[in-house]
């Protein structure tokens, strides 16, 4: 088992292997994203009952929560890739981190934006400087910082290194976001979905939310794969295996 994992790990370091194996995944990931998105949104927006307190405005949860969860997962993924790059100097890890950063930032922005839209009718304000909202805004700025470091430095190795270090430092913010609503008193309510307890949500409202969360992860995976493939093609463009790819030959003729 361990041997297999080690072998998989070494394979993941090979851009050619990654490019070839993911070719077949794109179609299925796209299919699942589209079906899940349509099913989740139709169930959530049309069939789930209105909330006893918030009426229909709670429905933005079907975008807000999945985006916020994926934004945080993406940062952790970036930090792990950064650690792998720093320790093993695996170029693929750096490329994955480069692929993830703008995606995570986008999801973070979506979460902040939908949160503001949700806050106005329920709380009575677009924004308040409570611990949850502020730490989430910090996450967005950390994403911008990592993106800048990954792109602004001339030497590729130095820019990968700098981005990896900032993402490792910034990962400290993730538990702060998670527990901000418990450690301090905030305007934002505590978590509805808990790992250890039953979710405090009616099942007919919960199912669409779970579907949307899974779908958002699948969509995120699809985007990471597509962007990583682009990174691979760009960095390996002089290599024989890339120049022999049918999609590359097509352009030349």
């Amino acid at each position: 088992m361990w041997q297999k994992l080690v072998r998989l790990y070494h394979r993941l370091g090979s851009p050619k292997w990654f490019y070839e194996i993911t070719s077949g995944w794109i179609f299925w990931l796209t299919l699942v994203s589209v079906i899940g998105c349509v099913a989740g949104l139709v169930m959530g927006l049309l069939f789930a009952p209105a909330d006893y307190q918030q009426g229909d405005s709670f429905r933005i949860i079907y975008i807000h929560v999945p985006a916020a969860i994926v934004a945080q997962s993406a940062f952790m993924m970036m930090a792990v890739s950064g650690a792998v790059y720093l320790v093993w100097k695996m170029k693929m890890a750096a490329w994955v981190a480069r692929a993830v950063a703008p995606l995570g930032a986008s999801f973070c922005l979506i979460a902040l934006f939908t949160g503001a839209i949700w806050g106005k009718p329920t709380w009575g304000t677009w924004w308040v400087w409570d611990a949850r909202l502020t730490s989430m805004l910090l996450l967005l700025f950390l994403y911008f910082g990592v993106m800048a470091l990954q792109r602004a430095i001339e030497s590729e190795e130095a820019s990968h290194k700098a981005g990896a270090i900032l993402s490792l430092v910034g990962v400290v913010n993730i538990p702060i976001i998670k527990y901000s609503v418990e450690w301090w008193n905030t305007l934002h309510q505590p978590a509805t979905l808990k790992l250890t307890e039953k979710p405090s949500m009616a099942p007919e409202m919960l199912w669409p939310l779970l579907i949307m969360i899974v779908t958002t992860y699948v969509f995120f995976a699809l985007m990471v794969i597509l962007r990583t493939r682009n990174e691979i093609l760009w960095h390996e463009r002089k290599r024989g295996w890339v120049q022999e790819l049918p999609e590359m030959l097509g352009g030349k003729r």
Partner: protein
Amino acid sequence: MNPKRKKRLQLIIFLVIGFGAAVGLLMYSLSQNINLFHTPSQIAAGEVPQGRTIRAGGLVVEGSVKRDNSGLGVTFEVTDGAANATIFYEGILPDLFREGQGIVAMGQLDANGVLQASEVLAKHDENYMPPEVKEALEQAHKDGKQSMQEAANGGYGTDSETNKAGAY
């Protein structure tokens, strides 16, 4: 793992743990400033300065909301279970404002210890359920029929959890 990589890995773990500990200490020492609002207990204990803009939060006490006969002024009390604070606000209250609801008000304490609020925000709890279920829950609560409550409940948003919004 070769020694060079091992050293780098150790360095990274040390960096993350060290930085995490530093931030943790910082957050701990700043916890009073990170809290969004003061609780009625803190106001009652005199921990809140007069005349400075602060936020106070708590559950609106049932039966405490008094509206002015002229104008939009409204006076109400909030509680955290241990103490109450009186708040005066002139303006349009958020839709979710009602007795028993968690709110956060921003304003200054006057000489009488009344918070003259310039902004009132409503909190909502983390429970989501259709209105019928909420009604069934409340009915069951009134009737005191434990068995019916569990049936209507379906395992989410028990009554004690619904009231947890008060656990500031």
